[in-house]
Structures are given as structure tokens and as C-alpha cells.
């Protein structure tokens, strides 16, 4: 099995690393202004000057994918941060202490789980207005249940271990046990879950932009570009292909990385 492991890590690393590099460059230097419209270049074909061609406003798709990928990355990372952070907190407390608290929180968790994330997003967006950071908050909240479940099952298992009992015998406080003793041992399961969470966040952001409640124009996110591109599918198929490809590479890279890490 040895040869197979680094195969995953290798390909995953290249794809994810490539994407991150692509985005990083985008932070400093952009070939064109992503929002500059240019009447002459509308639906321009792929050319050396415009490697990905131009969209319906004559904006350079290559630059917009670069900026779009950054927005999608920021949204996905933000979502995972909120989801994982709050999820770990809730999961650890309910898993470790159990009792009626666990019962109540789990019921709320199930309710959130069965709740369509679109409505949740709509509430947050209408409450605070649209924009990147509100999308992050909306998706973050929708991701808490799945993280909480994973962390809770880990804590249920690990709190029975002897070294936890030993720590209690020393008079170690509950909080210290939860976050100093037990938490590091959950990383083995947490890392792949975070990666999968990241992928779902990217796909969810794309879905939300498609339904029109995600990131607002003229900002670009891969999901928004994809939904706009669908109207011009026959005239400029490239406009849909490149953002779609960027999403796939980003998600593929991170899921392979998750598998590679998981198997090591």
C-alpha cells in the first residue's frame, strides 16, 4: 500500500498548491482590472492577451477567475472556521458532559441539520444585507451541525480512555482535560472533516450564487461567474468552463490532500 499513499498527497498537493499560488499571485498583480468593461472585447475569443477570453462586458475572464477564486477561497475558509470552531465547542461540551444538555443541543442540531440552508442564507442576507461576510456567516451557521456531530462522537469515545481517567485522578479540571488532553487526539479525524467541510463550503457558495443570494456583483466569485455564464452558454462556452474548472481543481486538490493525510 505504500506507493499509493504519496500518490494522493502528491496530486492533491500539486492541485491545491497550484490553486493557492494562482490566487496568491492574484492578490498582488492582476493582468487587467477585473471590473474594467471594454466594449470592443465583448465575448473575445481565447488569445495570448486574454488566455481565457472575455465575458459579456468585455472583462478579462482570466483575471476574474483569479479574483473569483480568491473570494470563493475566503468564503470557504471563513465558513469552515465558523463551522469548525463553533462545532468543536458545541461537540466537545455535549460529548464530554452528556446528560440533558447533550440531549437538548443534539435536538437543536438535528433541527438545523434538516433545515434547508437556502432559507438560513436568506434570513442572514436579509437581516444584514448581502455581501461576502454575510454569506460566510450564513454558511458557517449551516455547517455547525455536521462538525458538532463528528466532534461529539470523538469525545464520547475518548472520554472513556484510561489517560483521561488518570488525568481526573490528578485533579485535572474538566476544561483542561477537554482542550489540553482530549482535543489533540481528535485531530486525526478533524483534519479530513475540515477538508471535506471546505469542499462543501465551496460547492454551497456556488449554489447560493447560482440562486442569486451569494456574493454581489461586480465582485466575482466562481459560483456567481458560473451562474452568469449559463445565460451565454452558446455564445461564449469558455465563460462557463473556466470558473467550473477552477472550482473542480480547488475542490479536487483539497479532497485528495484530505485522503492523503487521512491515510498517512
Amino acid at each position, binding site marked *: 500500500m505504500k506507493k499509493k499513499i504519496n500518490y494522493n498527497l502528491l496530486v492533491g498537493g500539486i492541485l491545491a498548491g497550484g490553486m493557492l499560488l494562482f490566487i496568491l499571485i492574484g492578490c498582488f498583480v492582476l493582468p487587467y482590472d477585473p*471590473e*474594467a*468593461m471594454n*466594449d470592443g472585447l*465583448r465575448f473575445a475569443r481565447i488569445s495570448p492577451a486574454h488566455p481565457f477570453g472575455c465575458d*459579456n*462586458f*468585455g472583462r478579462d475572464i482570466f483575471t476574474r477567475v483569479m479574483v473569483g477564486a480568491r473570494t470563493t477561497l475566503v468564503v470557504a475558509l471563513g465558513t469552515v472556521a465558523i463551522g469548525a470552531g463553533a462545532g468543536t465547542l458545541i461537540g466537545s461540551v455535549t460529548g464530554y458532559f452528556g446528560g440533558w444538555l447533550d440531549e437538548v443541543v443534539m435536538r437543536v442540531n438535528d433541527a438545523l441539520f434538516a433545515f434547508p440552508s437556502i432559507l438560513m442564507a436568506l434570513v442572514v442576507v*436579509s437581516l444584514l*444585507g*448581502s455581501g461576502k461576510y454575510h454569506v460566510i456567516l450564513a454558511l458557517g451557521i449551516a455547517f455547525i451541525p455536521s462538525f458538532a456531530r463528528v466532534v461529539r462522537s470523538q469525545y464520547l469515545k475518548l472520554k472513556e480512555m484510561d489517560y483521561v481517567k488518570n488525568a481526573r485522578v490528578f485533579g485535572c479540571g474538566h476544561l483542561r482535560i477537554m482542550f489540553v488532553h482530549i482535543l489533540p487526539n481528535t485531530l486525526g479525524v478533524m483534519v479530513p472533516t475540515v477538508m471535506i467541510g471546505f469542499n462543501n463550503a465551496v460547492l454551497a457558495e456556488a449554489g447560493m450564487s447560482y440562486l*442569486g*443570494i451569494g456574493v*454581489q*456583483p*461586480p465582485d466575482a466569485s466562481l459560483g456567481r461567474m458560473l*451562474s452568469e455564464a*449559463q*445565460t*451565454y*452558454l*452558446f*455564445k461564449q462556452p469558455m465563460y462557463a468552463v473556466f470558473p467550473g474548472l477552477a472550482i473542480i481543481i480547488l475542490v479536487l486538490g483539497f479532497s485528495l490532500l484530505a485522503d492523503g493525510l487521512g491515510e498517512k
Partner: protein
Amino acid sequence: MKKRSISMLLAVVLTLALALTGCSGEKQGESTDSQITIGIPQDVEESLDPHEAVAAGTEEVFFNIYEGLVKPDSDGNLLPALASDYTISPDKTVFTFTLREGVKFHSGKELTVEDVVYSIKRCSDPDDAVRLKAAFTSIASIETPDDKTVVITLTAPNADFLCEMDCPIIPATNESPSTVSDGTGPYKFVSHALQENFIVERFEDYWGEPAHIKNVTFKVCANPDSIVMELNSGSIDMFARVTSTQAAQLNDDFNVLEGTMNLVQALYLNNAVKPFDDVRVRQALCYAVDKQYVLDMTSDGYGTPIGSSMFPAFGKYYMPELADYYTKDIDKAKQLLADAGYEDGFTFTIKAPSNYTQHVEAAQVVADVLKEINVTAKIELIEWETWLSDVYAGRDFEATVVGLDASNLAASSMLLRFNSDSSKNFINYNNPDYDAAYARAEASTDEEARTAAYKECERILTETAANVYIQDMAEFVALNKKYAGYEFYPLYVQDVAKLYIVEE
């Protein structure tokens, strides 16, 4: 081994389903008599009662089923319909209609004066919120001297009252008009599958010139992005209001007919909010936005630039010269901004309804153009419902891009809203000269004087740059080459009766 056989069985079922698709790929069977499938963006409202219809999409379809005493034609004139002719008293308060002979309802019942009185009374009951027609509140009395004439007397003179008389007439004997459809139009109702389709069929003994095509299916295509696919695949034969880009992607079994959408698209500015309370700032924006550039970017140059709240289809009221009142002049714009105290520009937010791609794209182009006079416009997409309650009703916005159409052929439907005290004045426009000019138009009985007064209103709107007017958008109708005879109307109407099948 049990598990293994189950999964094999399931696989067989799947391949069977796939095979099924192969054989039913071609169109669903050619029926002998003529038929057409027309795509519509929103579903028709469920109630079949014409007086309850609110959405433009519903009135557009009901035009083929129900008719009023008079009926608009494609040039915007009102022709006699259920009334063979009509006379209006000189002081515009008494309207006399004589009923046309031998008009039948779809149910076969004869049209009588009772039906006319019943229908009009139904729409003038003040506490019936849904059916009330605002203009009917000024009706003093309706009499029927004999079984052929109806006389309506108003409490105050109203020259445009005739435009209201396209109000649909339905039989008094129909107990539940919302579920049983009985009109006098060229087509009669067959069936309505919610969010799916609305089917009508030719009414054989129609009083006027009968329709050409027998069966008509209005198919709901909610997803704007898949319209091109559905047209190209032949699942729909006609779709009104496609955008220029969509029209460009159609294959060659389609003719693309060009007309106008008959609405005023503009960057509507909230005149009560800083900095748009200063006329110089509004004028600066008008000087900065080059109308033709917006047209080029959003609809390949199609569409008619306009300068005020009126569009060409209104014929005598439209003033083409206003369109060029403001031509692109960056220096003048900057100068105006400096005078108003905004040398280094300012930032504001444009709220645009997310479901109208044409307005969203126009907003983006305007935002890009305004950068030249370092004014930054941020765009916020909001849902149509939120636009209705926050922007239109709540007036909680700085600027918005939307298209306002006319509910009927009266000039007032476009200009009433800019009176300072009007409940529909969502841009908080406040100009005493405008109010005076509008009052003059309402009061005058002589046609020339009224038209001159309305034109004065339009000039004031343009001079005071109430809004940054852009265009009356081009309307493209994709019509399969098999059909012809489509006519553009100034109102939101699809006259299917005129369509016919071209014999090869």
C-alpha cells in the same frame, strides 16, 4: 450470494429506464389541427377572474380570453369591441355605449347590458380591495335606458376615462368567476397545471375575425438561462422579451422580431437623500452617462435612448428631442459636482432587483461609467419582494435601476407618480412647477391643451434631471419560422389571435 443478485436486478432496471428514453426522444406526436407552444417567464395567476388579475404576465394572456367595451389596437388607439360605438359628452362626464349585436360568451350565453353593469359595478366597490379599479371610484351612476345602451356618468370630468373601459366584461350569471372562465375573447380556457402550463383553444363562434391557430399552450419557463436551450430543442415555439444575447444564440429555425418593451429604464434617484437632493449632482450624473454606451454593452446596441418618463409607443405625448438633452460631457459633469461641493466625488449604493438580468447589467455598466467622474457606485442585489417593500413602498434606497411600464394608454399612468403628494412617488420628487403643469393637464378638456401640459411635465422632469433616463429597451420576440403575424402592442399584451401558420 443474495446481495449480489439484488444489485444485478437494480442495474437491469436502470438500463431499462435508459432504453426507454431512446424511443421517446422525438416530439410528442404531431396532432392534426394547428397548435403552438408559447413560453412565458412567470406562471399565470391561479384565479381565472379577470378583475383579480394583477401581474402583467396574467393580463398578457387574459387579453385573448376576456374583452372590454373597447379594445386597444397595435397602434395604441381604442377600437370599439363589445360596444359597437360610443359617444362622450363635451364636458367629458357622460359616456354612452351601444352594445354590439349577437356577441356570445364562451358558454354560449348572449351578452346583455346586465352583464356590463354587473362587471363595472364589481370593479367600483371601494371595500373590495382586490378588484377595485381606482378610476371607477369617480363613477356617479350607470343607467341602461334600453337593452342596447349603457350610460355612465362621472362625478368629475376625466378625458382618459375611455382608456379604463377596456375593463373585461363577464356574465352576471357566472357564480364563481375565479374557477369557471367565461369570456368573449377569440380563445377560451381549457386547463391550467400550476407552474407548468396554461392551455387555451380557439372559440369557434367569436363575434370578430376568428383566430387562426386552434390549440395554444402557454408553457412556464421559470429558468431564464434555459430558454435558449428550450427554443433550440423545439420544446417551445415562441418566447417574447428575449434579450439580444439570447436572440443571438438561437439556431436558424427562428425569426427574431424587434419591437420595444414599452417601459422607461432609468437610474431612479431618491431625490430626498443626500447628495441627490441637489439638482446639480443629478445633472452631473446625466452628463456622465452615455446612453448609447449602456445600450452597446447590455444589448448589442438595440433599444431606444429616452430622456424622460415617456416612451415612443405613446405616440402624441412622446418628445424625441429630450433624449439628447444631456450628451456625454465629463468636464461639465465634474464642474457641476464641484459647484455642488463634491470635487472629489462621492459613494452611493444602487439597489437592483436580482431577477431582472437586464437591469442588473445596466446597473453594472452605469457603475463602471461613473468612475470617470470618480463617483463610486456599489451594487446591492435584492430580491423582487424586498425591492417592492423596501424601495417602492418604503423608499429606503439611494438609487435603483428598474423599468416602469404603463398600466393603460393614459399619459397619467406614467406621469401621475411624480406629483409631490402621489402615494407612488417613490423617488420623493418635489417640484411645484411640475405639480402645477400636471394639474393643468388633468383639468383641461381640450385635447391639444392637455397634450401640451403633459409635454411641459416631461420637459420639467428632464431639465431638473429627476432621474438618469437610459432607454426603452428593445424587445425581441423569438418566433419559429413556421408561424407569422406577431404584432407589437404599446401595452403588456400577447395577441395570439393574429398568429397564423405559414403554408410551405
